[in-house]
């Protein structure tokens, strides 16, 4: 078989899975209720603008989607561990499947798997039509995976848009909820602006260098060309576009609303997969195309800009999270803060490229696992037939459901960066690289910021374990769903494994 096909097989698998699901869904659903009803139903139906789900097939779709994505994750992990691609398989200069890309594939597919697992029970509770949910998510995942591997600006933009469009749809999936719509519209409008800005920047870079591959741009800019104003402008615009995608302050405005409004599995997906893809591509872009000293270094290079963004992001994210009452909003701000920590790793790429990249990847992995676990539990929590999203509603949750409560506590403590859980080793990987490349001040600021985050993470633990809910009030109960439980267990094991035995991944 062709080496290119093998290299791309995880992506092809996901795309084929999505197409197959759409197709089979269309065949199975009777009475013309096809997967295309997404657009039709909005226009034609009344107060309840979507078709009642076909309850019989509910467990199957989630399982199918999860297993396809899991297979893709396992495939990429095998290729990554087995070192199948060597120095990387380049495909027409547009894609490069190397170890970085494979790791990105694995993380994206893993995030998609966990999101699919938590979706079925959630969508069931929501009465949503999941016929479209999974294929959209899988297609978005394929976009994310392409993004991880793209090495030309054209591919980069197409992949980014594939990912973004999917995520816009997922955000607005709770069509009955104004919050969801608000979040989707905000996300879409701001996202469209960001894409435009990004494209504008790409145009400048292309105009100055005449190259559209990262490599070509890097070569053209290696000389004195790098300090030309239009190049700087182009780089700045690209940077803004990417900063929007990873929701770095001050380009984070959409995040809380979109995260809160989106269905919880989609929130988990956004917080995990979108971040992974955006960071992987950001590292690839900066480390190949824009490594020229004038572009990277002080005073106006991307490293300096990102350093400032990083500090702002960590502190703003954590400070704002302190004030949140809604758990999804709080996790949204916490994900902003995590983007800040990760940016430290990206910045230390200017000195120690390899170590910084592997540090960031490891951090993304640990963050993805803990974050998906926490969101799974949030997606399971139901009170009085509705989602329970207020932190106060979780009073006594840990007392009544000790196992789930303990798992939630572990996820939160991992995100806080407390040993021996995964997040701590992620922080270790990033901060030790930062210190070694002389950025110890950033490491200090990062640690201070993470102390701030202790307050709200353990605040949830306090609510869950140390406060009792009032008598006679309805309490939060978790929905019974084997798939969601499986997601929790899987994420939990990952968090422990990544914490206690990080070595296989690090080496």
């Amino acid at each position, binding site marked *: 078989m062709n080496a290119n096909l093998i290299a791309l097989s995880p992506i092809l698998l996901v795309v084929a899975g999505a197409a197959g699901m759409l197709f089979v869904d269309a065949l199975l659903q009777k009475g013309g209720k096809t997967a295309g009803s997404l657009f039709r139903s909005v226009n034609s139906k009344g107060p309840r603008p979507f078709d009642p789900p076909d309850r019989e097939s509910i467990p199957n779709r989630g399982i199918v989607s999860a297993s396809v994505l899991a297979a893709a994750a396992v495939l990429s992990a095998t290729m990554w561990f087995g070192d199948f691609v060597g120095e990387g398989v380049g495909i027409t200069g547009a894609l490069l499947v190397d170890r970085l890309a494979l790791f990105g594939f694995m993380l994206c597919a893993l995030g998609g798997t966990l999101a699919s697992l938590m979706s079925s029970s959630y969508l069931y509770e929501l009465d949503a039509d999941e016929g479209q949910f999974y294929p959209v998510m899988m297609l978005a995942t394929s976009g994310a995976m392409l993004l991880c591997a793209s090495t030309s600006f054209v591919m980069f933009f197409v992949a980014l848009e594939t990912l973004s469009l999917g995520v816009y749809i997922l955000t607005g999936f709770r069509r009955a909820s104004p919050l969801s719509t608000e979040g989707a519209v905000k996300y879409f409008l701001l996202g469209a602006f960001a894409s435009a800005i990004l494209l504008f920047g790409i145009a400048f870079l292309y105009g100055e260098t005449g190259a559209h591959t990262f490599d070509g741009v890097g070569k053209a800019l290696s000389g004195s060309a790098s300090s030309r104003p239009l190049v700087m402008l182009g780089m700045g615009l690209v940077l803004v576009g990417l900063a929007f995608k990873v929701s770095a302050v001050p380009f984070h405005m959409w995040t809380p609303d979109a995260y809160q409004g989106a269905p919880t599995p989609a929130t988990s997906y956004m917080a995990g997969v979108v971040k992974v893809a955006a960071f992987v591509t950001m590292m690839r872009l900066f480390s190949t195309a824009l490594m020229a000293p004038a572009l990277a270094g002080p005073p106006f290079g991307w490293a300096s800009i990102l350093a400032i963004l990083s500090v702002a992001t960590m502190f703003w994210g954590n400070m704002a999270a302190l004030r949140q009452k809604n758990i999804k909003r709080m996790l949204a701000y916490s994900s902003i803060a995590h983007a800040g920590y990760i940016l430290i790793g990206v910045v230390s790429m200017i000195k120690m490229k390899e170590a910084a990249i592997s540090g960031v990847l490891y951090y993304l992995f640990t963050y993805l696992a803990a974050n998906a676990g926490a969101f799974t539990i949030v997606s399971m929590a139901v009170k009085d037939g509705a989602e329970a999203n207020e932190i106060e509603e979780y009073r006594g949750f840990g007392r009544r459901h000790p196992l789930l409560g303990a798992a939630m506590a572990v996820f939160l*403590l991992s995100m806080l960066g*407390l040993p021996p859980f995964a997040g701590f080793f992620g922080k270790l990987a990033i*901060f030790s690289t930062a210190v070694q490349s002389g950025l110890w001040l950033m490491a200090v600021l990062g*640690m201070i910021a993470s102390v701030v985050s*202790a*307050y709200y993470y353990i605040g949830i633990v306090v609510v869950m*374990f*140390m406060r009792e809910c009032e008598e006679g009030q309805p309490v939060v109960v978790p929905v019974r769903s084997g798939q969601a439980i499986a997601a929790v267990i899987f994420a939990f094991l990952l968090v422990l494994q990544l914490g206690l035995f990080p070595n296989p991944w690090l080496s």
Partner: protein
Amino acid sequence: MAHLLTLIILVPLVSGLALLFFPAGAKRAMYVFAMAASLGGFFLSMGLLGGDYTQGQFQFVERVSWIPDFGISYFVGVDGITLWLVLLTTVLLPIVVLSSYEYIKDRIREYLFSLFLLQTSMLGAFMALDMFLFFVFWELMLVPMYLIIGIWGGERRIYATVKFFIYTMVGSALMFVAILYLVSEFKGLTDVTTFSYLELRRVILPPAVQWWLFLAFALSFAIKVPLWPLHTWLPDAHTEAPTGGSVILAGVLLKMGTYGFLRFAMPLFPHASHELGPTIAVLALVGIVFGSLVAWMQKDVKKLVAYSSVAHLGFCMLGLFAVENRALAGSVYQMLNHGVSTGMLFLLVGVIYERRHTRLISEFGGLAKVMPAYAAVFVIVTLSSVGLPTTNGFVGEFLILWGTFTSKVLPHARYMAMVAATGVILGAVYMLSVVLRVFFGALKNPRNRDLTDLTAREWLYLIPGIVLIFVMGLFPTPFLERIEPSVELMRMDYLQKAEKAMGVEQAVLAEPLLYLLPGDRRFESIVAAPRAVPLPKKLGPAGLPKGPRPLTLGKRTPISQVPPGMERKPKQPPLPQAVIPATGAQGGAP
């Protein structure tokens, strides 16, 4: 036994996990199991006494690579200092378990699990010889303690536990970066990434860097000690914690801070601790006097004991920074004493709290009439806490005061010792006044009439403490003879390195140096041979002073006074890495 230390660390963890499988109602079975496990852990740790502590080296060393990419290993060992801290930790656990039998009403299983998890992390932190492992255990201690205070604590438990958590976390965050910095400096010198304490200890950092790193470590440890003015979390945490939590908090957790200074902050950053030592000693003195005065004013017995901890640990800190053998050994001894006697005081407060559900001194009076045995035990422990001869407290305080008085590194050492001595007097004042107000006088409060005296269970967990008080007071030698070699080794290393830093700083110490300890040969093979770059010709061996030279006492050589012929060269070519060969020939350049 081959893996004694690992076994000691794992036994509590495994038993804690096993406890989770007990049915929630099986209180008796859980306690029987917990008692057996904790006693087993204690007897296991007695095996540590079989080590050879005469040379002060680490015994029972185990080392397994954990994360090779980062040079992190599971690396544990005990020396004469940690030996006793480990034993203190293991002896307190069965006592705490037994004392919790009545006090903890709900969710016993989870409570015992938290206790055992805490035990594992404390033991691990004491034994760890890998900085990373130490940090992992250090942070791990936070969670169970946080749960113990937050779930089983008193009225204001949530405030107290969040405060405890945040305070401790603030300190350790900066320490983490400092550890990473140290490791990266070591890597710059040797091209080896390692978190091993024994290897990192050989780096002499430039003074300015030492200052910052020392401050980062010191903040973390000083919060834990707690050193005035960072003590404010302590009274809250102690007051709200359940009895068992208070005992462990006072008995062991606070020692983490003093131990951290002794083991890590001082040997790693000798120059900075030499410079900052007097300041810390003054803070310790303030803590002694302030803690005593505030304790005197307390209405709540438990708060009083909590503030007395601030004072007692002030003594420990003073002893550490006097850097005299006696003071250091006394300081370690005082850590143990404080663990025993303050632990006992918290247990005794718990006894009365279980009966009356109040701890206000004004509620009591004349208790000696209804609870004579309780009163007798309380008086014994009080005397130990006050430091009366024949009790353990006397030995520790005496050694600290003596060592401080003769200290060569503290300015005005005699006055410092005098101020500290007032702390002893104040200690007697507040402790005896509380005894007076609680146990003697008229039995005014009618609710105290029918109090029962100590039960068999209470006797059982109080007796070991009483025995220890007298054994440690009358026969301190077995303890001290194991502590002293380690302390001596640490002091020599510390002074030599401090001196080396000062001797070298004028010449080349803008960059870190690597320095092999004479006693460290055992571990040389672990590190790849450091690159021995000869000193620049101009400097010659004179750049490093030959042989031991007594420290300039009191008046230290200012950095600006450069001896003739040793002016700092322009920094080209880059940095000489002076490596003193381990053969003991301290010449430096080959």
